[in-house]
């Protein structure tokens, strides 16, 4: 009974003036996030379409360029991101039980995993700079033709854009994690935790496709 009334109090303070109920507001927030994720998917779609075309047109060069990549980094990074997605999902579960501190801890684990991901990315990028495997006119690698130039343009565009999303997503996780730890959310209202999680899962989802396409040709 008392918990229900506490929920009522929380509900009124979270409710924006133009919504009539908290359920409706959360429904709107969720739908808004899904629509936003759809735009993110289509943002990457152009890059993946470009990748498909040039992979088709320069198949040999793409295979050869991909062999030059360190597959183990891609593999480890996939495992890292998948695991971070798992911890974020667990964090949401904690939030659903009103355990803000648990959410914070699990989100921070995810952020650490994200930093690990970026660290591996850094190793990889610096290796590319050493060997001259750079996009477009900066390519100084060994493979002849325009294929590898296009491959590395797409490689840097896709992983770079994805990397930016990792940074943004990790920042969101920090902010929401800190707020959850400070007790900002209740079992009835923790939609920000859910939305932060959705964003992070999308970052993971895109990497799941990047990994085989870039590393496992």
């Amino acid at each position, binding site marked *: 009974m008392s918990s229900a009334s506490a929920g009522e109090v929380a509900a009124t303070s979270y409710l924006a*003036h*133009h*919504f*009539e109920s908290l359920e*409706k507001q959360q*429904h*709107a927030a969720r*739908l*808004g996030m899904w*629509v*936003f994720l*759809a*735009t*993110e998917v*289509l*943002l*990457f*779609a*152009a*890059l993946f*379409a*470009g990748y498909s*075309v*040039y992979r088709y*047109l*320069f198949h040999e060069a793409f295979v050869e360029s991909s062999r030059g990549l360190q597959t183990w980094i891609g593999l480890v990074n996939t495992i890292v991101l998948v695991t971070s997605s798992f911890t974020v999902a667990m964090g949401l579960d904690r939030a659903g039980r009103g355990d803000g501190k648990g959410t914070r801890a699990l989100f921070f684990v995810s952020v650490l995993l994200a930093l690990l991901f970026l660290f591996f990315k850094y190793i990889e990028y610096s290796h590319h700079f050493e060997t001259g495997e*750079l*996009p*477009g*006119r*900066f390519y100084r690698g060994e493979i002849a*033709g*325009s*294929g590898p*130039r*296009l491959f590395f*343009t*797409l490689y*840097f*565009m896709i992983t770079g854009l994805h990397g930016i999303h990792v940074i943004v997503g990790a920042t969101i996780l920090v902010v929401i994690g800190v707020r959850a730890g400070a007790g900002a959310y209740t079992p009835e209202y923790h939609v920000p935790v859910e939305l932060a999680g959705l964003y992070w899962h999308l970052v993971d989802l895109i990497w799941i496709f990047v990994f085989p396409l870039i590393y496992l040709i």
Partner: protein
Amino acid sequence: MNPSSASDLLYNPRNYLNSPETGLRSWLLTLDHKRIGVMFLVGTTISFFIGGVFALLIRIELLTPGPTIMSAMTYNRMFTLHGIVMIFLFMIPAIPSGFGNFLLPIMLGAKDVAFPRLNLLSFYLYLTGAAVALYGMIQGGTDTGWTFYTPYSTTTVTKVVPVLLGAFILGFSSILTGLNFIVTTHTMRAPGMTWSRLPLFVWSIYATSIIQILATPVLGMTLLLVAFEHAFGWGVFDPARGGDPVLFQHFFWFYSHPAVYIMVLPAMAVISEVVCAMAHKNMFGYKAVAYSSLGIAFVGFFTWGHHLFTSGQSAMTGGIFGVLSMLVGIFTAIKVFNWTATLYKGSIAFKTPFAYFIGFLFFLVFGGMTGIALATVSLDIHWQDTYFVVAHFHFIMVGATVMAFLAALHYWLPKITGRMYPEGWGLVAAVMIVLGFNFTFIPQFLLGNSGMPRRYYQYAERFWPLNVASTAGASVLAIGLLIVLVYTLLALKWGPLAGPNPWRSRGFEWDTPSPPPPENFEVTPVITHGPHEYEEPYPDLPATAAPEPKHV
């Protein structure tokens, strides 16, 4: 119009214009969708003016076959800026972000859009994008045409990067507005507002928003790739590095062809409202019109390749795109027939919005039919990149969209400002605009058909007479638009008070006082009937009764 309105309701004293407070600060930081809508309208109108000036300069330059008033380079910049300003700064945001913002929540019976802060952000992204693009224009402009075709756009010496970034930012403004409208339509409808009771304006704006959401990100990415290629030389479109310039055209038109429907669907939204109100009749075939909006949005995505018929696209893809493009004609025809059927036995009030509806109908059918012709691959090879194409898309974009914009301006001016425009001047201007428009662009059809290419600085002497005719028409069109601008501005201050419902329209937006109060409705309305219901006896003298007769 409404002689027996109670004087205290002739002009709602506590409205969004003066409450909760006035002053520049309260406008710039407002979260009220009506104020944001009005700010968008002001911004887009200024852009329309700038774009119109560019258009006139182009027409003056083309008055003689040789150089007239500017150099070839200036001319190239001029038509590029005309295209960019008109499309990205005026036509895409004007009706959805301007009128849509103002009307959509009111029509749904909501207090605001779902995400008011995002809505304001959308406006500031619009301003930022406009400012960045303007910076590019001042820094020397760009000469690629608004289509930014590679490889020219990645090698030109003009300042293409700021303009690209401006368009990129404007895209995000468009995305946020679309996102807001989709969520608002799904979640903010008043009790009783079922999907089959949505006004047709909402249906069309909803369809527009879907396109904005799905297509705009692809354009954003594409423009970014071009900017990277121009700035750092590592793009993917440069044929010198194995890139495929036709791929750019695919990406560009994957957005920009649906973007035509971002411009036209809102125009259809306006017209569906205007035609019912002016004919005082229920919409003929409500469901067909509603679903055809979604149909256009869907099919619009399958047609982009008809811009690439002569670009090296494969013959098979070209053929498929040609056939698919014609499907748009089916859905458009459904709408045209239903609007026309709505007029049948209606009691038509031939006011200014109706005059623009007539213009709209003619231009849409004419522009649409030439579009079907252009979608035929073999014919397009003859017409591609001639003035025939220019005339065709101006019939749709200026003809249909600007007519609808003007119809909306006149129809909803009493709603937005509480004041009326001068009807006599309105009709005079409408006649000038419709006739001037025809005089501008019908000669261009003829020019294109006899082979005058678009975007050329000089032309053969045999094209001279028709070009003079076109420029003359453009001047009439410009004077008509100026008259509209002048009397609208005057009406803001001195126009007669319009009363709550000067058109006796049954649209839901007229159920609130004019101008609407800041929270739209004192009590959340309960919707008990469909939109555009003229069948049931009209509650006479709506103003003397309760201001919101439908509300509990």
